[in-house]
């Protein structure tokens, strides 16, 4: 679904804190399309989804698959017209985002198979946290293990940051994309900018 920018408002109005060269830089990436996908791995529906998307959905919770997608900074967290990022959130649950028309790809699959495919573009917003101290900022609130060997690049995890539920994707070196639920976004932003005080 195309976003009508004339009428749309993101939870954080594209807020930004720090800058590209500072110890930590964070900003909202608004209006990125996203879907929650549910399908049982191993069955025909799963194969049909993979065929339609052109990638293999990872089946280990916390794994990420990407098609043309990369994290390169503000305004353009995925590159390529057909980028798809698939975060495995549960054994039969993926969060899909990217610039590809995922809806068009999956609608035919939905008609033929038992899958659930829900537009959640407004359910969460995206905050990119990057810079040399990005991990330190997150560690103030994130109880999970952020060490490289336990949460390497292209790992994702759901959890609670400053009591706000979110998905975290370690998208590249010193760079994390957070997908908080929209209603918590302002609170989370307050917490993140507060935690960054010591590094900026």
């Amino acid at each position, binding site marked *: *679904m195309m*976003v*009508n920018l*004339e*009428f*749309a*408002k*993101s*939870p954080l109005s594209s807020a930004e804190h720090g800058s590209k060269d500072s110890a930590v830089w964070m900003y909202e990436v608004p*209006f990125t399309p996203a879907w*929650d996908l*549910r399908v049982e791995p191993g069955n025909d529906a799963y194969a049909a989804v993979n065929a339609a998307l052109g990638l293999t959905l990872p089946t280990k919770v916390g794994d990420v698959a990407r098609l043309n997608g990369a994290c390169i900074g503000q305004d353009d967290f995925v590159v390529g017209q057909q980028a798809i990022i698939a975060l495995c959130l549960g054994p*039969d649950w993926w969060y899909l985002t990217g610039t590809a028309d995922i809806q068009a790809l999956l609608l035919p699959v939905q008609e033929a198979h*038992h*899958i*659930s*495919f*829900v*537009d*959640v*573009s*407004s*359910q*969460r917003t995206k905050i990119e946290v990057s810079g040399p101290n990005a991990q*330190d900022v997150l*560690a*103030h*609130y*994130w*109880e*999970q*293990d*952020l*060490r490289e060997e*336990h949460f390497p690049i292209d790992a994702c995890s759901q959890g609670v940051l*400053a*009591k*706000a539920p979110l998905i975290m994707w370690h998208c590249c070196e010193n760079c994390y994309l957070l997908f908080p*639920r*929209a*209603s*918590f976004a*302002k*609170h*989370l932003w*307050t*917490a993140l900018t*507060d*935690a960054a*005080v*010591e590094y900026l």
Partner: protein
Amino acid sequence: MSTVTFTFDGKQYTGQKGESLASALLRNGVLHFTDSSYKDRPRGVMGLWVEEPNALVNIDSGAGEPMVMSTTIEIVEGVVARSSQGVGDLPDTRDNSRYDKVNRHVDVLVVGAGTSGLEAAKKFADQGKSVIVMDDKPTAGGHLVYLGQPVPPELLSVLDRENVTFLPRTTVQGLYDQGYSVATERRTDHLDVNVHTEMSRIRTWHIRADHTVLATGAFQRHLVFANNDRPGIMLSHAAATYVSNGANPFRAAVVVTVDNQGYRDAVRLSQAGVTVNAIVDIRNNPSGPSVEAAKASGIQIITGKTAIDTCEKEDGTVKCVSVGNPDGTEAACVDGDLIAVSGGWTPVVHLATFIGIKPTWDAKLAAFVVKHSDSLTSTAGMLAGDFGDDDEAAIFFGPKLSTEQALVAFVDYQRDATYRDFKRAIDAGMRSIEHVKRYTAIGTAHDQGKTSGTVTMGLIGQAIGKAPDEIGSLTFRPPYISVPFAALAGRDRGLLSDPERTTPIHSWHVASGAPMEDVGQWKRPWYFPMPGESMHAAVLRECAAVREGVGVMDASTLGKIDIQGKDAGQFLDLIYTNMFSTLKVGMSRYGLMCGIDGMVFDDGVTTRISENHWLMTTTTGGAAKVLDWLEEWLQTEWPHLEVYCTSVTEQISTVAIVGPKSRELMRRLAPSLDVSNEAFAFMENKHVDVAGVPARIARISFSGELAYEINVPAIYGLHIWESVMAKGADLNITPYGTETMHVLRAEKGFVIVGQETDGTQTPDDLDMNWIVSKKKDDFIGKRSFSRADTARDGRHQLVGILADDGSYVIPEGAYIVAGADEKTAPPVKHIGYITSSYDSAALGRSFALALVANGLARKGEKIAIPMADRVVTGVITDSVFVDKENTRRDG
């Protein structure tokens, strides 16, 4: 070392930057630090570190802090301290310091950077493990630092390795199950007295370690003899350390010991220029290198004797110690302005006991030690009983004392608890340390018995002729030392203490001046007052606008769950009490959910979007628990059902336009939509563009009025709200908040789960038998409806209540008693209580909902409500007050 100026009790002194306040005061000849908490006895410093029971101060500079141990304060320029007589004195000014928290996972946490801690760190670092070393002192080295000896470079250099993090000034406050520790790091007080606003003053570390090494060392303990508390009586290791560092107000010392530590300290004192008049050793035949060294330096050694009593100078400091047999006989005075006591070592067993590890008694060392090693936790150094080869101690805690002497022989200094107090506990039959502690308050002060714990156990043993390990075991609870609440709170204060969840329209509500109501974590507009308007007037105005014109409400907070799959209808039939599988596509239905106990659990409207696609709404507060509930049944009971649930609470923003004029407004918002009742019926849904964005319109009403709920992707929520306000301006559209919503629904007798219910109401109790299907074989809760208790006579049932005085709004929660004429003064049996109560614009009077025993059969009966200042009388009515025939919902 640079010199700094500091203030103590209004007087300026100089000291060396970074030394402890206690050390600096001794350097300035101050022996009398404060008076004791209860008995006003002069007290000086006893110890070196956090074992200090006496020398408490209030810090008035910097962030300010009450009741801190002067032995742990690193002085910087401008520190202002005040002696504290055991009672804290909170500063009047707000503490503007920053406190924060950091989570860290690590392979190995080493607690204590003494020799054994560093050795453990080296061992694990060599294996390539990530290691955090914490020590509560400013530098690594432990004991060696006190002795002024260099830390072996091969150990010290471990701290510089890439896989090792050293956190000095960091106190592990608690150790918990599964390798979880909480520590506090003092980060700024040692830098200067100014408050740092960016760097946190204290950082709380939450550590998860695969393995924790406890190398916490040991404290020296005192002996219990008469007048053992005078300034100038110190633990020998502390005295020797202060004096060796040049903080030496003493001329002549007597060392009273039970072990060889006393000998080593005597030599250090002597080397620092203090004349050691005697070493008094309770042991008859002391031996070992330390004993030989003391002999070689010519110090007089008195064996088989101990301190019995002391006498004082005019200023209250100690003058001499009377030395005698352990039974108190043959006592004679030996002069000394320092009485250095070595009562044995007490390993710091705290962290080990926090996780349930029991210390064991080592009779050779006269100490409770923890020799422990498993995959999660191990111990090292003095805690593990590694005292070196020269440290056998006598099991001795104090001499026999006369009744008079016992009155001034202190077991716990901070609590002023004496041997007499202790003896009374024993004479009263106490044997367990836990009982003695509670009887005497020993071990309950700020130091939590760091020195007095083992002493007390030893004394019990001495008194009843048992070894200390036969008495019981030392157990402690976190925190290890007192910690400011602010440090534990970290950033979880003010706005950050709990998330505020907001809807996309929140900024409009705030700008309009609406006060917010907390609904769970959500902030919802409570009412929208006009300038100068009271809440009461605003709500009456909003209610009237909805019933006569058109109102608008932000309903975005309702929980929403997308449900897909061919078995979704069957699943909803099992979850709800009423039938859903028969619902036509495009229609919505209200449903009630019960627990297996048959009690109402949540409610909401569920819509069939397409054949296999449903959208459930839940209560605002119930969204998360309902989703857990649905997943529970799908995953653990009915995995064969092809159903997937997805939370879309924040995906969809809902703007409800409500009232007789809502049809006209809806027509304006979606000109292409036929809004007639024939084309768009109650409980029907239509997909249409509204103000340029795709929307689903639902004819759902929670007020009884004609109403349309406009559902859009949440990024358009504010746009839709603003469009509604613009198009409705000439209809006098009235935004309304949660209070008006509550009044309107209560006028219709609609319940709110959590307000009319508390988990003990069945649908029948709520007069909602109509929503319980008689056709379905089973649904969750069904079987419980016929349980004896749920089917019994006399259950509380939902009714209306009208007070005789219509201007009086009965407080919610008020108890109801039967009959206006009956006795209303306590004791009186209540028959129910008020669940909702409001003033009503539509009725022109107050009304209430209530749960009343057998209420449905009692309509028309008089009731009374005894309040503190009056007895309110009234009558039981039906729970529907407005539009009983449901004529208004179609406009």
